[in-house]
């Protein structure tokens, strides 16, 4: 939409400006003693307003040749040409008006007197045209910067929302409620254990908030976050939950997306250990093979456990995130074999913050089995 035509207030100011120009022009003509004040006003006001209306079309030229992206010489050339076309068009309309005034209103000899002033009129029009162009460019720049500001604000809001959503998806609120229930139970039995539990919870929450906001973190940090989570769950599940970690030292500096293991570890607890009468061991392993970092999670599952889609959702989220970050270079596979649930994650091994694409990793495949 035209920024002036679309806005009544702006259109009013714009036309008022041209009305003033018209009056000034009439004054110049009248003061030259070649025209009476009536003649000067009847001539200058309508043709100036019409000129102002024609000049609104400048916006379309300004839009096609934005100041920011067009060389200045080109802007100058194009606008001069457009100015000439505009003035020619205006001259035709103005001469028509002069004829009408001469014939219908009895302003005798107006045509000859106007022709004598033609260089003045054309000169003034050129200047006014230049002014209009400048005003339009100003408006365009102003709107662009406003738009950019809005866009930036919007993208900031989107980013924050996405971050919060990711955090919500990665940290199950029921984990918090259950942990608080454990604290409530321990309060009268074992104050030292209450303190240990709150410290572990605080540690885990702080880590996940701090690291979750980053684009990538070291595997070392990610694993320590998972272990913090599991240590809290150990207070709830007691001896039912055992943890084994085999992280190759060379992998510790590899970069991974933050909280990428969290949903997988949570699945291992809630769809695995939680359904086992005597519990079991969650194994977290990683190794560096060629250009690929391989992370493995294993947990026992009860073959008779009720199946639901929740664990599948967790896996799906991890898949989506991997795909968004690594395209086809990362792969997640989850399957149940002999009552053990195996979750395997292959991602390009990177050690610096600079993103570099490594040689082809195993191709991305759909999750083969939904975690129950």
């Amino acid at each position, binding site marked *: 939409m035209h920024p002036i035509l679309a806005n009544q207030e702006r259109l009013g100011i714009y036309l008022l400006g041209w009305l003033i120009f018209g009056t000034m022009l009439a004054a110049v003509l009248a003061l030259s003693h070649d025209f009476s004040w009536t003649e000067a006003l009847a001539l200058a006001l309508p043709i100036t307003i019409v000129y102002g209306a024609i000049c609104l079309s400048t916006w379309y030229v300004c839009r096609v040749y934005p100041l920011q992206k067009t060389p200045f010489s080109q802007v100058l050339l194009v606008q001069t040409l457009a100015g000439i076309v505009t003035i020619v068009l205006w001259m035709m309309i103005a001469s028509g008006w002069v004829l009408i005034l001469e014939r219908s209103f009895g302003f005798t000899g107006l045509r000859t007197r106007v022709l004598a002033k033609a260089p003045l009129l054309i000169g003034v029009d050129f200047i006014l045209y230049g002014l209009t162009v400048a005003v339009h460019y100003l408006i365009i720049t102003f709107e662009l910067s406003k738009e950019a500001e809005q866009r930036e604000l919007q993208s900031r809001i989107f980013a924050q929302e996405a971050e919060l959503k990711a955090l919500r998806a990665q940290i199950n609120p*029921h984990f918090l*409620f*259950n942990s*608080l*229930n*454990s*604290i*409530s*139970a*321990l309060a*009268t*039995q074992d104050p030292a254990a209450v303190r240990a539990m709150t410290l572990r919870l605080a540690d885990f929450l702080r880590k996940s908030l701090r690291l979750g906001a980053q684009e990538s973190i070291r595997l070392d940090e990610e694993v320590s976050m998972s272990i913090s989570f599991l240590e809290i769950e150990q*207070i*709830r*599940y*007691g001896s039912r939950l055992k943890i084994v970690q085999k992280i190759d030292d060379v992998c510790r500096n590899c970069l991974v997306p933050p909280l990428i293991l969290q949903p997988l570890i949570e699945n291992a607890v809630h769809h695995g250990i*939680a*359904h*086992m*009468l005597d519990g079991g061991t969650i194994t977290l392993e990683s190794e560096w093979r060629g250009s690929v970092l391989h992370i493995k999670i294993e947990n026992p599952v*009860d073959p*008779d456990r*009720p*199946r639901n889609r929740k664990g599948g959702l967790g896996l799906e989220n991890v898949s989506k995130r991997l795909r968004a970050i690594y395209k086809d270079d990362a792969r997640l596979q989850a399957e149940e074999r002999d009552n053990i649930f195996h979750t395997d994650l292959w991602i390009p091994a990177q050690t610096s913050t600079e993103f570099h694409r490594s040689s082809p990793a195993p191709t991305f495949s759909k999750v083969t089995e939904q975690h129950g």
Partner: protein
Amino acid sequence: MGFRIFGESMQTIQAIIVDDEDLARSIIREYLAEHAEIQIVAECSNGFEAVKAATELKPDLVFLDVQMPKLNGFEVLELIERDLVVIFVTAYEQYAVKAFEVHAVDYLLKPFSRERFDEALVRAEEKLARREVLPSAEIIKATRSKGETVERILVRDGSRVFVIPAEKIDYIEAQDDYVAIKSEGTLRLKKQRLADLETLLDAKRFVRIHRSYILNVERLARIELYAKDSRMAILKDGTQLQVSRTGYDKLKALL
């Protein structure tokens, strides 16, 4: 692994606590210590234990967690088939509606205060004093959400519970008030109507081939004409089941 029994008394309200977490049970135990009228007769850490304790000890009141190993809280209720007062204790809000559908007196969200717990107890005691009896059939029906198909069937034999995954069922036969479920070479009886069970099973796999039979179509070997308008389904293990005319139409539509 058995549950613990804490002795018996007829004057008091007998309660069992069912939760897979030691700490979650301990807080209920602690709150109950103030209530001399309530006696904890058993603590159970999984669904199987809960069914066993509920059928053998016949408690008046049960504190029931929802998510547990083996059986969830609703499945436990379905299997107990007894009228007893239930207080659900869980960290999950989403089961509240279903909990009241199965006539739970209260729904405690973890963590909960002593005051909130006592409130639930008052409700439970009022209900026990009124001696309201609920038809167990209604509870069983309510434990299953409408339109939701089951992936496993639970059968109780005395205080033992058998879990039969749907894919391992060969066929189900109506026997008076019971259904006989044939799975992995054994027949198990469950007190349920065949028509009710039919609505719970996945219609893409289980077909009512006869007034008395629901067949897992994956077990079907062939269909033979037996008499006019009467056919026989021959299963892969050689079992022969009668197929009615409408049953045959349903099978044809599916295969």
